[in-house]
């Protein structure tokens, strides 16, 4: 998509051409076999389709010149193209919701229904949001380029927010039979690594990368052989990816040395504390609670408050934690009900806990998570 957008200078045309190329691939690859470079094949095919399309549409003139331009040599760097597309999708002239939706659509490869679910909005609303964002990019002339150095501090935060959302969309897949969409997580980590290389002086980029690495490290222990969910406290920590843990922790230490904390660095630090515990019982919960207090000071959202409450339960017990949780307006968020259920169970209020687990199961679209929540409800 990124390469085609640069070549064609038009998001809709690029998207159409890529879709056509995938249709051809679905038709041919099963009989002809996979080409040696599937991505390269898609790009070449999509570009040919776009050239045909432009020729058909225009008898002469500017469009013909445009079609000729498409025969220009291959791009210098595919990574730069991706960054260009990210910064275009995350341009500050677009609303945050539009930025996130567009990036997930164009770079994350999510379908519109999946994006709609991630944001808890109706599908039609999300579809309209994406169409409107693409129209604004085209009509207002939002440029397809990486912003100059001086503008990066303003242009970066939306990019980080978007990458984190792609990661989360992968790590807690909204729907379907798989708990995790590893492809999306890998994509978010890849883009974050690129950003970190491009912007070594931005601690929040390093923080975001560290956060993703530390969470990814637990991936092998997060599901059992049959694919069911294992909670953090119950995970076999010897199965964590030690190399990812080490890399993430080193990034966190570097961030701490810099002394410019931000939301991603703090979340990474929380995960670094978890990773440092060889057994769940050895977790330094007071340190985690302190980090959550700092995070609440920077980003006082209900979801952060919910996560902080989990730490409160470990430090001060389930009763004060439940009091915090029940004041939160997160009735449509399945994790809210799962946390509540766990706290109720620990307080011996079994009937209420069962109902809360059932409510959580109703609200998640992920089959693995639902199975886990229903099992808890019937324990």
């Amino acid at each position, binding site marked *: 998509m990124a390469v085609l957008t640069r070549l064609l200078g038009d998001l809709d045309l690029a998207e159409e051409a890529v879709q056509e190329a995938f249709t051809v691939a679905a038709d041919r690859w099963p009989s002809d076999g996979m080409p040696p470079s599937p991505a390269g094949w898609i790009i070449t095919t999509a570009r040919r389709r776009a050239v045909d399309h432009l020729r058909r549409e225009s008898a002469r003139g500017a469009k013909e010149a445009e079609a000729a331009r498409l025969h220009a040599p291959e791009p210098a760097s595919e990574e730069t193209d991706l960054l260009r597309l990210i910064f275009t999708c995350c*341009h500050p*002239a677009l609303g945050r919701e539009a930025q996130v939706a567009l990036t997930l659509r164009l770079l994350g490869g999510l379908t519109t229904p999946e994006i709609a679910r991630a944001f808890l909005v109706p599908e039609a609303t999300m579809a309209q949001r994406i169409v409107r964002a693409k129209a604004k990019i085209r*009509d*207002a*002339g*939002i*440029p397809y380029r990486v*912003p100059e150095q001086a503008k990066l501090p303003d242009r970066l935060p939306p990019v980080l927010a978007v990458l984190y959302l792609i990661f989360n969309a992968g790590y807690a897949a909204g729907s379907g039979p798989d708990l995790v969409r590893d492809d999306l997580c890998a994509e978010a980590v890849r883009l974050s690594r690129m950003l970190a290389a491009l912007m070594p002086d931005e601690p929040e980029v390093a923080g975001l990368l560290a956060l993703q690495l530390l969470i990814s490290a637990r991936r092998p222990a997060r599901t059992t052989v049959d694919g069911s969910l294992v909670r953090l406290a119950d995970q076999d920590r010897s199965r964590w990816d030690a190399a990812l843990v080490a890399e993430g922790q080193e990034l966190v230490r570097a961030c701490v040395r810099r002394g410019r904390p931000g939301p991603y660095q703090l979340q990474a630090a929380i995960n670094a504390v978890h990773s440092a515990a060889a057994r769940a019982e050895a977790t330094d919960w007071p340190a985690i609670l302190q980090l959550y207090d700092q995070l609440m000071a920077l980003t006082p959202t209900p979801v952060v408050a919910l996560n902080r409450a989990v730490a409160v339960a470990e430090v001060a017990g389930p009763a004060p934690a439940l009091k915090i949780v029940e004041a939160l307006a997160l009735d449509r968020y399945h994790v809210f009900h799962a946390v509540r259920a766990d706290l109720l169970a620990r307080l011996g209020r079994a009937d209420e806990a069962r109902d809360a687990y059932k409510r959580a199961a109703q609200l998640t679209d992920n089959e693995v998570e639902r199975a886990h929540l229903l099992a808890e409800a019937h324990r």
Partner: protein
Amino acid sequence: MKTYLLSVYQPDGPTPPPEVLGPIMEGLAALNRELHDTGAFVFTAGLCPPDTATVIRAKDGDVLLTDGPFTEGKEHIGGFTVIQAPDLDAALRWGERMAAITTLPVEVRPFAS
């Protein structure tokens, strides 16, 4: 090149005193010279207060006139500038400077091509 309309929104009410307005007008004049020099300038104008406006509506072959601006509200367009720029980022940079000089909100809106 794309064409953009930069509209300055100003609160209704009396004109600011000369010691406030003076530096703003100087700043705008300098900005306009720069727009001219760089070839970005197309047109600019300041407007009389909104209560000098008249709205016309065609109705059943007749016209209906109403005294005052089309939109209700406490702010109206006080002036506008039409510029040419290679892309939105360039147009926004001109708009940012205009907002800083006037201390007022500036709306940047692309012309339909």
